[in-house]
């Protein structure tokens, strides 16, 4: 499970840093059909493409989501940025208890098929830590770096 999630997140990060070409007019039928099937109520969709992936940015329930598809129409993952108050309560209380001295620099929900979770990056003057939660209850250390 951890490997799947780590792969998805690292993949997403790499995708974010990859140059995308505007692909609104060039989404192939498989990808377009897969997107329509997965996100029935999506609005305001814009597409971008790399050599291997399509990226759709769209609105769903007033949120902005980013979904990644392979050229074969396989959904690689979905990412949604969050506010800390939008986390499940157990994760919020854990942050207050254990990381009160840190500030949040990044927080997102990721999902792929039947796997989902949260990643948060926290910083203080000395270090940057990334935590992940796969169960909506507890945080696990994912990455820790000194500044």
């Amino acid at each position, binding site marked *: 499970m951890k490997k799947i999630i780590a792969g998805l997140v690292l993949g997403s990060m790499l995708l974010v840093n990859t140059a995308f070409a505007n692909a609104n007019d060039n989404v192939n039928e498989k990808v377009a059909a897969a997107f329509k099937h*997965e*996100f*029935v*109520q999506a609005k305001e969709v814009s597409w971008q493409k790399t050599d291997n992936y399509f990226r759709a940015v769209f609105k*769903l*329930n*007033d*949120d902005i*989501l980013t979904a990644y598809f392979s050229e074969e129409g396989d959904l690689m993952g*979905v990412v*949604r940025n969050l506010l*800390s*108050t*939008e986390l*499940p*309560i*157990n994760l*919020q*209380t854990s942050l*207050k*208890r254990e990381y009160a001295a840190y500030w949040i620099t990044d927080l997102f*929900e990721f*999902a792929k098929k*039947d*796997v*989902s*979770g949260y990643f948060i990056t926290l910083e203080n003057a000395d270090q940057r830590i990334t935590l992940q939660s796969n*169960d*909506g*209850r507890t945080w696990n250390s994912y990455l820790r770096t000194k500044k």
Partner: protein
Amino acid sequence: MTLAVAILGSAFATPADKEPSVIVKAAFAKEFSTIKDVKWEAADAEGVYQAQFTFNNESLQAYFTEEGEFLGTTRLISVSRLPVLAANTLARKYAGYHIVSVYEHSMTESVAYYITVSDAKGGLMLKATGNGELTVYKRFKQ
């Protein structure tokens, strides 16, 4: 305590006959150390206390046994706060329904979401998980 008790607890809770014990209050303080303003009620299950309070500007209910065991929390959330997979499954399977309410139920061992929807025929309470599983938990007649 059943899940239904926790979910419906806020609707059926009554003022507690007596103040919760020091043990219960200590258990609350351990979970929510920054909260000072708490309203205690008796949940709709014997020996269970419901603490009503505001956390991060949201109304929250937390449940404790007389022995101080923390059972979990419930909060009313908007449908947009459902996890992506759960929201997407809901949109696909229940597109024609009106969404009445969505509750997040965080227990010590898991998190679940209870969504009440209705149409002309009646209502349903659905149970969703963060991984997008969505099942009918309860049916209501019109």
